[in-house]
């Protein structure tokens, strides 16, 4: 990103010459990248469950403290494969306040999503909210650890156990985050991570399925490619879902930088809080005290009345300065095709969050000065 010439010297509110995005886009050194890729080329092992995939699976499982980590081509496919491997038919309770892929994966696995509202504070589903949505056709619950904040894993595990349901978590945001001190990855029956370039663990694209269930892991390993013979007796639907050695190499390098990149994210997050302090109507999404977070998202709730302008108006002003803040997630998934055809009961909290949340740029390319410019732009906009 390059700052506007004027903005860099006299006026912080002139924005940027090139767009500033919300994704992490963390990169290792070119030297580290080249060394890893020269290794791939020397081995002539480009994909098909190569040594780097195996190393990544072992390293991520070890990091999370789970029995199995099974890497795949991307996070959406991780959820598709995980759900398919559970061999279910029926309805799945899921929040509409999530990235569309969470719900799309349910549909691809041949299941019917049933939307559930979220808690206004954690923005995730909770056991009481999910319990109210259970019907005779419910077979599973998919919780989403939005912004890396755990989706009530203890409560949902108890509920799933009591009601005989499978429990899956979309952990796309949650690499390196904890719930009651325990790293996300081993909750429920299975969890699915993303290694997309915009996430803190960058595999260009990529994803990973984690579980402590040996039998389920065996099915998922069969399902992620057409390589192994399926002698399970109950053949599973399979897909080429392999992560390549290129993706695995990048994800492994990223895993090595996870602590540093988390610290850098935390620093940026604190800078934003400091720079925006005192502006009424801007409410930061807190990361729980006592828990680890990767701080990969800087999210604020906008109060129109207090701020004197709507979230969407503020977004327009920022966009005009090449600050591509986003209204994640909007609209709610219950309002987009094909799920808008489902007869969903009212989701007032979801609707309110979709109307009021804004995500600000962060990640490796966002410097302290960038944060200062973004915050000065917001301050100028609201005081105009």
């Amino acid at each position, binding site marked *: 990103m390059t700052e506007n010439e004027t903005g860099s010297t006299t006026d912080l509110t002139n924005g940027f010459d090139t767009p500033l995005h919300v994704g992490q*886009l963390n*990169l290792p050194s*070119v030297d580290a*990248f*080249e060394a890893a*890729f*020269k290794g791939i*080329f020397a081995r*002539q092992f*480009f*994909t*098909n469950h190569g040594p780097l995939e195996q190393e990544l699976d072992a390293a991520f499982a070890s990091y999370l403290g789970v029995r199995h980590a099974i890497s795949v*081509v*991307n*996070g*959406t*496919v991780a959820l*598709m494969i995980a759900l398919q491997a559970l061999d279910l038919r029926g309805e799945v309770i899921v929040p509409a306040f999530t*990235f*569309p*892929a969470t719900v*799309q*994966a349910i*549909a*691809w696995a*041949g299941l019917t999503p049933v939307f559930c509202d979220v808690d206004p504070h954690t923005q995730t589903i909770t056991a009481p909210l999910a319990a109210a949505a259970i019907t005779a056709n419910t077979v599973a619950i998919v919780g989403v650890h939005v912004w890396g904040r755990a989706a009530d894993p203890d409560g949902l595990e108890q509920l799933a156990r009591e009601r005989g349901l499978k429990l899956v978590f979309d952990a796309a945001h949650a690499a390196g985050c904890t719930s009651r001190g325990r790293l996300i990855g081993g909750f429920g029956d299975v969890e699915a991570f993303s290694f*997309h*370039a915009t996430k803190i663990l*960058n595999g*260009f*694209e990529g994803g990973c399925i984690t579980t402590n269930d040996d039998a389920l892991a065996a099915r998922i390993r069969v399902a992620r490619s*057409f390589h192994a*013979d*399926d002698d399970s007796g109950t*053949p*599973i*639907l*399979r*897909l*080429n879902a*392999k992560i*390549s*050695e*290129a*993706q695995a190499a*990048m994800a492994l390098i990223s895993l090595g930088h996870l602590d540093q990149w988390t610290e850098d994210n935390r620093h940026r997050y604190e800078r934003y809080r400091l720079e925006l302090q005192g502006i009424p109507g801007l409410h930061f999404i807190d990361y729980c005290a006592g828990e680890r977070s990767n701080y990969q998202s800087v999210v604020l709730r906008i109060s129109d009345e207090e701020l004197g302008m709507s979230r969407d108006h503020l977004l327009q002003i920022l966009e005009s300065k090449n600050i591509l803040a986003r209204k994640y997630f909007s*609209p709610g998934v219950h309002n*987009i*095709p*094909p799920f808008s055809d489902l007869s969903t009961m009212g989701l007032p909290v979801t609707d309110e969050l979709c109307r009021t949340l804004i995500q600000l740029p962060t990640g490796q*390319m966002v410097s302290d000065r960038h944060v200062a410019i973004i915050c000065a732009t917001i301050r100028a906009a609201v005081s105009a």
Partner: protein
Amino acid sequence: MTTRTEIGNLAVFGGAPLFTQVRTTGQLANRNPELFFALAKQAFERRRLTNQGPLVCELEEQLCQLHGVPHCISFANACFALIVAIRTLARPGARKVLLPSLTFRGLPHLIRWAGLEPQYCDVDAVTHTLSPLSVAQNIGPDTAAILVVDNVNALCDIDALEQIATASKVPLILDCVYAIGGSYARGAVGSRGAASVFSLHATKLINGFEGGYLTTSDDDLARRLRRQRNFGFGDNGVPVELGLNGKLNEIHAALALSNLPCMQDIMADNEQRFESYRALFADLPWLSFADYSNSPGNYGLVLMKLASSAPYSRGQLVQLLRAENALVRPYYDKPLHRGHSEPAGGIPADLPVTDRVSQDFLQMPVGDRMSMADIELLRGFFEVLDRESGAILKRLRD
């Protein structure tokens, strides 16, 4: 590498393998790593690693030119291309997708991911591609699509198949993974049917680590598939239909872009290897090769045929060769209608030609790891197999 003078030296009996490093049935080309690193560096400098970046756009443009089509849509791999194409093109209300049984074992799974069911048809005895007669016999009101597979030794009878498809108003989707570089009597491979799908897998002609793409001349189909590979997002950033993440990333595109200009060289090298196989093995009466007279010309696979007079079964040959690190494969081990790896529900089929052909062929080592000297070594190995067949078979049985 070692020579074999006594059967005790065969790897299957404990000797050192013929090849110290495995020889595979995949291409594994990586012809211009310098260009790859230059392109990857550009991606790093732009911080653009996925989400339809400039390298993916450049690759799609070059592939449009290669195939002479207006639209090329890249995917994370060919499977995603096939799933969304089948799902989008399927006739509404119909459930069955016709396809050959002598093919990649993933295809029925992809049809099921698309929400449909496979129905197998027989193949032509020479080309091993979908038999138009069998398709005509099987097509009906419940046929949602026809999935045709072009083979490495022969292209399908596209004119006849298109005629049947058009008459029945059923879309024709082509799996052209092994047909890249070829031409039908009319038009390049990739330019016929409703859509054609190709692979950028490392074992295929253009190595992009993993990857795939679809070509079509249908503007509306292209628009929908571009949307579907990116979560169904419309122009305003809101999904307008069901989608998934089927995107090709920039680094995979960089490797494909580095190899694409070498495609003709790769094909020429493959042809030379194929001709070498054919010449060196010509005097072994129990071996021959598939008929390549209607091949797409990429020689990405070398299909060796075992005569009924062969002293060894195909399984025994596979065992003997794989022990030597020559990772041959049956072509195909079990035809899909006989397989057990597919979820239940497949429609039983009587496919006599498929059953017969599926017994006969072996995929021999090919690709950039396989030198002419390696083929000569293999020929020497077969010499021992031929000469000592009685003793070898006895010892295998013991």
